[in-house]
C-alpha cells in the first residue's frame, strides 16, 4: 500500500466477481492483462494501428481519458504513477502517436516513475517496409525504458503486457513499452494473459547484507556531523514513515533531493529542506560540511552534487539503493547497501548501536537556518513577486494538496516556497526537465487523487507547450487550479543569460504572449488575472472555490531571479545569494 496522504475508498462494486468473458483476440488479451493488473485509468489518443485495442477497451470497465496530445498521455500516466505508486498506463497509435509519447517516456525513465506505454504498430508483414505510420518504436524507446517489447504473437501478447506491467512496478520503478502490431492484436487467440510477473532475469533485492548494515550503522553512529540525504527512492519505496522514525529516533538532520521532496516534513526541526542548484543555503552548507551521509534512493544527479570534487568531500557515504548500478556511479559509496529503502531503513534502525553525538552539529544546522533564511523582498509599489503567490497559496491549502509544475524558475519557486509535509504531493519533472509537464501531469494527478486538491504552478513558456490539455481538464470536469507565474519570458534561460552570457537575451523574451485568462475561458475553464498584491488571496480563493479547472494568469516581476544558486558544476558550499556573488565564484 502506498504512503499517499489520503487514499480514496475502493469502489465496492462487485465488478471483480462478475464472470469474465473468455478472450477471443490478442487485443482482448491486452486489455485483460491491464484489468488483471488493476488498471483504473488509461490516457491515450486513438489511431489506425491501435484501433483493435481500443475496440477491446469498449467492453472494459477501465476508464479511458482521451488526451489532446500523446505527450500529455505519457505525462498524465507518469503523474498518475507518482501519486498512486502504481504504473500509469498510456496508449498511442504507431508512428507519430508513438513518437509523441517519447518525451513522457524519457521523463518517466529519468525520474524512475512507473509507466506502461502500449503503442500500435503496422501489421507484422509490413514491418521494415517503411509502411504508412511505421516507426521503429522499440528501437526508439529501448534506451529510455526498462524494457521495450515487440509483441510477436496473439497468443503471447497478453503475457507481454502482464510482464511489462510487473516490470514497470518492480524494484526501481520506471517505464516499459509494448509495441503491438495490428495483426497481433486483431488475431484470434483464446490464451488468457498470465499473472503480472517480472522476467526471471530480473532480480529485486530486498534486504541489504547484514554485515554491511552493521558497519554502516557503526560509522553513522560515530559521526560528528551526520546528515540523511533522502531521495525520490524513499517515496517510491513507501519508506517515508520509516525515514521519519529513523531520523527522529537518532536525531539526524534530513536533507532531501528535489524528487525526495515530501519524504520528510519540511516543518520539522530536523528538516533542512532540499539541496542542490537552487536548494536552501542551510541544506547546501550541511551537505558540504557533513562527515557522514546516509544517502537513500538517490542517484547523485549533477544538479544535486554540483561539481563532484567539492561534493561532501569530508563525508563517508552510506548509499542505500535498490539499483546496484547506482552505487558508486557518480559518488563513491564507502558503505554500499543494496536493497529496498524501507527494508534497509528498518535494518539500520535496529543496527544502530547509539545515536550519534551531534548536539553541536545540530546547533550549527539551526544557525545556518537563521543565517540563510528563505526570504524575499516585496516592495508594495513593485510588480508582484512569484514567491508571495506560492507562499500564500501554500498557507491556504491542506497538507495533502498536490503540487504539479512545468520547468523553469516557477518550478523552483514552487519547490522553495511551498511547504511540503507529505510524500506523493510534489509532482514535477526533475531528471529530464520537461517544459510542458505541468498541464497534463495535473490531469493525471487529479484522477489519481480525486479527493485531494491539485494545484499546478506553470510558467508562461511551459504552459504554452501543453495548453491543449486544458480541453481535457474541462471535458473531464477536473477541479484543478493552474497558476501561470507569467514573466513573459522563458525566465530560467533569461536568468542564465544575465548571469553567464553578459545579458545577451537571445530568444528568451516573448514579444507577445496570449492572455491566459481569456485562453482559459475559450477552453471552457475559468480565467483570472493577478496584477498586484491587492487581491492575491481573494483570487486564489475564488479559483479554488470554482468547481472545475481554473487558470490564474499571475503577472509577476519579470526581473525576478531564483536564489540561492549554485552554478552548474560549482561548489554547493559556495551558493550565490544574489547576482553579485556569481561574479565572485
Amino acid at each position, binding site marked *: 500500500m502506498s504512503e499517499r496522504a489520503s487514499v480514496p475508498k475502493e469502489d465496492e462494486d462487485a465488478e471483480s466477481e462478475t464472470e469474465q468473458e473468455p478472450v477471443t483476440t490478442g487485443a482482448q488479451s491486452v486489455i485483460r492483462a491491464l484489468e488483471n493488473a488493476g488498471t483504473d485509468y488509461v490516457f491515450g489518443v486513438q489511431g489506425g494501428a491501435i484501433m483493435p485495442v481500443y475496440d477491446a477497451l469498449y467492453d472494459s470497465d477501465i476508464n479511458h481519458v482521451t488526451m489532446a496530445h500523446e505527450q500529455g498521455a505519457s505525462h498524465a500516466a507518469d503523474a498518475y504513477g507518482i501519486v498512486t505508486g502504481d504504473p500509469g498506463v498510456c496508449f498511442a497509435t504507431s508512428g507519430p502517436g508513438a513518437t509523441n509519447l517519447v518525451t513522457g517516456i524519457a521523463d518517466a525513465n529519468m525520474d524512475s516513475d512507473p509507466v506502461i506505454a502500449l503503442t500500435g504498430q503496422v501489421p507484422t508483414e509490413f514491418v521494415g517496409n517503411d509502411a504508412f505510420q511505421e516507426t521503429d518504436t522499440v528501437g526508439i524507446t529501448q534506451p529510455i525504458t526498462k524494457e521495450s517489447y515487440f509483441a510477436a504473437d496473439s497468443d503471447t501478447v497478453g503475457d507481454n503486457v502482464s510482464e511489462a506491467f510487473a516490470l514497470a512496478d518492480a524494484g526501481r520503478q520506471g517505464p516499459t513499452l509494448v509495441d503491438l502490431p495490428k495483426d497481433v492484436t486483431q488475431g484470434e487467440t483464446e490464451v488468457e494473459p498470465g499473472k503480472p510477473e517480472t522476467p526471471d532475469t530480473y532480480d529485486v533485492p530486498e534486504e541489504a547484507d547484514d554485515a554491511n548494515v552493521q558497519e554502516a550503522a557503526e560509522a553513522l553512529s560515530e559521526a560528528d556531523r551526520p546528515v540523511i540525504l533522502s531521495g525520490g527512492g524513499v517515496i517510491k519505496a513507501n519508506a517515508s514513515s520509516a525515514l521519519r522514525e529513523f531520523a527522529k529516533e537518532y536525531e539526524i538532520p534530513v536533507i532531501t533531493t528535489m524528487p525526495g521532496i515530501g519524504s520528510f516534513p519540511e516543518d520539522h526541526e530536523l528538516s533542512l529542506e532540499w539541496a542542490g542548484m537552487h536548494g536552501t543555503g542551510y541544506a547546501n552548507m550541511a551537505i558540504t560540511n557533513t562527515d557522514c551521509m546516509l544517502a537513500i534512493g538517490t542517484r547523485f544527479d549533477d544538479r544535486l552534487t554540483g561539481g563532484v570534487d567539492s*561534493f561532501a568531500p569530508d563525508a563517508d557515504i552510506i548509499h542505500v539503493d535498490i539499483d546496484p548500478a547506482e552505487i558508486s556511479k557518480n559518488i563513491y559509496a564507502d558503505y554500499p547497501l543494496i536493497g529496498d529503502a524501507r527494508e534497509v531503513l528498518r535494518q539500520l534502525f535496529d543496527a544502530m548501536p547509539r545515536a550519534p553525538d551531534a548536539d553541536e552539529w545540530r546547533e550549527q544546522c539551526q544557525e545556518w537556518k537563521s543565517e540563510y533564511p528563505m526570504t524575499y523582498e516585496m516592495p508594495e509599489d513593485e510588480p508582484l513577486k512569484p514567491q508571495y503567490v506560492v507562499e500564500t497559496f501554500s498557507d491556504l491549502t491542506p497538507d495533502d494538496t498536490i503540487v504539479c509544475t512545468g520547468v523553469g524558475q516557477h518550478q523552483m519557486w514552487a519547490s522553495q516556497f511551498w511547504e511540503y509535509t507529505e510524500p506523493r504531493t510534489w509532482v514535477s519533472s526533475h531528471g529530464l526537465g520537461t517544459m510542458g509537464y505541468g498541464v497534463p501531469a495535473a490531469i493525471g494527478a487529479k484522477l489519481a487523487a480525486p479527493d485531494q486538491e491539485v494545484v499546478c504552478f506553470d510558467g508562461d513558456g511551459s504552459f504554452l507547450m501543453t495548453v491543449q490539455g486544458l480541453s481535457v481538464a474541462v471535458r473531464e470536469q477536473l477541479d484543478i487550479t493552474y497558476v501561470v507565474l507569467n514573466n513573459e519570458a522563458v525566465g530560467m534561460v533569461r536568468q542564465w543569460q544575465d548571469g553567464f552570457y553578459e545579458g545577451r537575451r537571445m530568444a528568451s523574451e516573448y514579444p507577445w504572449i496570449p492572455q491566459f485568462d481569456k485562453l482559459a475561458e475559450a477552453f471552457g475553464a475559468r480565467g483570472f488575472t493577478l496584477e498586484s498584491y491587492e487581491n492575491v488571496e481573494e483570487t486564489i480563493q475564488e479559483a479554488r472555490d470554482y468547481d472545475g479547472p481554473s487558470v490564474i494568469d499571475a503577472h509577476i516581476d519579470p526581473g525576478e531571479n531564483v536564489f540561492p544558486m549554485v552554478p552548474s558544476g560549482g561548489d554547493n558550499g559556495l551558493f550565490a545569494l544574489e547576482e553579485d556573488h556569481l561574479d565572485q565564484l
Partner: protein
Amino acid sequence: MPGPAPDERMRPKGRRNTQGIRVDPEAEVTHEPRQAVLSALVKHRPGVLSEVSALFSRRQFNIESLTVGPTVDEDTARMTILIEEPEPGIDQAKKQLRKLVPVVSVRELEGESVRRELALVKVSGEKPDDVNAVADMYDGQAVDASTDSVTVEITGSKQKIDAAVEAFKQFDVQEIVRTGAAALERGPKTLEKDV
C-alpha cells in the same frame, strides 16, 4: 537574500576526484584504464545485440570488440566484450549490462582466461609457397587459393594475430577480416556456476 557571502563561509578540507572518490587534497590521482573481458549470457532473441551495443555507446564505455554466438542451450547466447576503462568504468559497465532485462548473467573473466580471435587474410597469389611458410609460423593454414590470391586462416590471441597480420604485409594484403575475441575462463568455473 541575506547570509554570509561565499568567501566568508565554513569550508571542508577534503576533495573528490572526477569519479567521486575521496582523495588526498594535495595529490593528483588518476585511475589508469585497463583491459577487461566481460562475458555475458543473454536471452537469444531479436534485438539483444542492439540493446547491448546501444548501452555501450550511450554510456560512453570504450569497447574494443564484441562477439556473440550461440551456446549449448538454444535459448541463450554468449557475448564476449572487451573494454578498456579505468576500474570504476569497468564496474559500471558490468552493472549496467546486468541491468538489461535480456541479460542473464555477467562476469569479468580473470586475466588468464582463454582468449581466441580468428582472422582471414587475403594476400596476393604471386608467392604461394612463401605465404604458406609464414602461415605455418603462426599455425595458420591456407583455406582458399586462386591464381591471384591466397586466403589464410589464423586463430589465436590478439597479439599473435597482430603479429601475423604484420608479417603478411610483405605479400600485399588485399583484405582482412577479424572476429574480435571469444573467451572462456580457465578451470571448472562457468558463468552459470561459481566454483
